[in-house]
């Protein structure tokens, strides 16, 4: 069920991105899209009554584990998402310096 919620979240973020006319709202939609994608990636690797992939001693390696690879991918993707979001916010700040507003419609009037 959470897998479908994640896909709907991803699509919802895309919808928000296509329709919102406010820069900050667009960045928020981008973040929602990425959160949905990350939950979907983790749900791909989930195994019922599996255990987190942490092995404290060699004897434990016989257990049923969750898939560790999607977790490594999401770990990388989260940090990349932060990089893009921080840059987008920096652009939003410099756009606000220039146009004194975040809404695209008001900016077009000023052009």
């Amino acid at each position, binding site marked *: 069920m*959470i*897998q479908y919620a994640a896909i709907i979240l991803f699509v919802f973020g895309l*919808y928000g991105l296509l329709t919102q006319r406010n820069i900050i709202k667009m960045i928020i939609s981008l973040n929602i899209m990425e959160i949905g994608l990350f939950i979907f990636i983790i749900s791909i690797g989930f195994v019922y009554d599996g255990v987190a*992939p942490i092995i404290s001693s060699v004897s434990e390696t016989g257990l049923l584990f969750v*898939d560790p*690879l999607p977790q490594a991918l999401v770990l*990388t993707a989260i*940090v990349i998402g932060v990089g893009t979001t921080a840059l987008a916010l*920096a*652009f939003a700040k410099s756009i606000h310096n220039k146009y004194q507003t975040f809404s695209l419609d008001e900016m077009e009037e000023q052009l």
Partner: protein
Amino acid sequence: MKNLIGLLVSLLLGVLIILTLASSPSFPEFGSVDINDRVAGEYLDNDNVEEVGSGNIVTAIVVGYRGFDTLGEVTVLFISALGIALIFSDKKQKRLDLKFKPNFMLKTGSRIVFGIILITSLYIIFHGHLTPGGGFPGGVMIASAILLLYLADDKFRSNIKGFKVLEGVAGSLFVIIGLLGLVIGTYFLENFIPVGSLGELLSAGIIPIIYMLIGLKVGSEISGIVDNFLTEGESA
């Protein structure tokens, strides 16, 4: 009108995704995944775990098997911090005078909490290969500790020059360790330090060293980004 098109496009994509995934034979049901027919099965295999020597398999993947991804990821943060500094670079920076003034509670509270956050972040970084966490959350925790100092005192400016140097040195050391792997061993980023026994602090060869460098680098980068966001040009 634009909202309608946006709604249609995203609805269409959503329906396409859900229908295809629901009807495709090789897309596994939620939770019923057989790890062994995936590459991940190898990572959890006994002798592979011992060969890499890191208790936390995810760390073994992030820094060991797919260390090149992590090098790329550290570059993403590096270029974002560089870009943000570039965007705000033309004016001499002074602290943004925000409306809210830090009151007494915030000042004293943050001094106490600052030490705790730092210690936990160092713990997370150094135990990255044993317990969950690692260089990235640890680094961001260091940055949030410094963020707390920014909030507690509105005249506080951290030592930006020092962070730039730390960032450059940590990044270069990461690549140099990779090149050492190429020179000493035969592959880039190869683990040329003996791995030691699983579960000990000083095990898993270069993995804790790389995670420590990543922690320092991420911490200094994000503090730089925070400083850029909390200052503004002199003339503004």
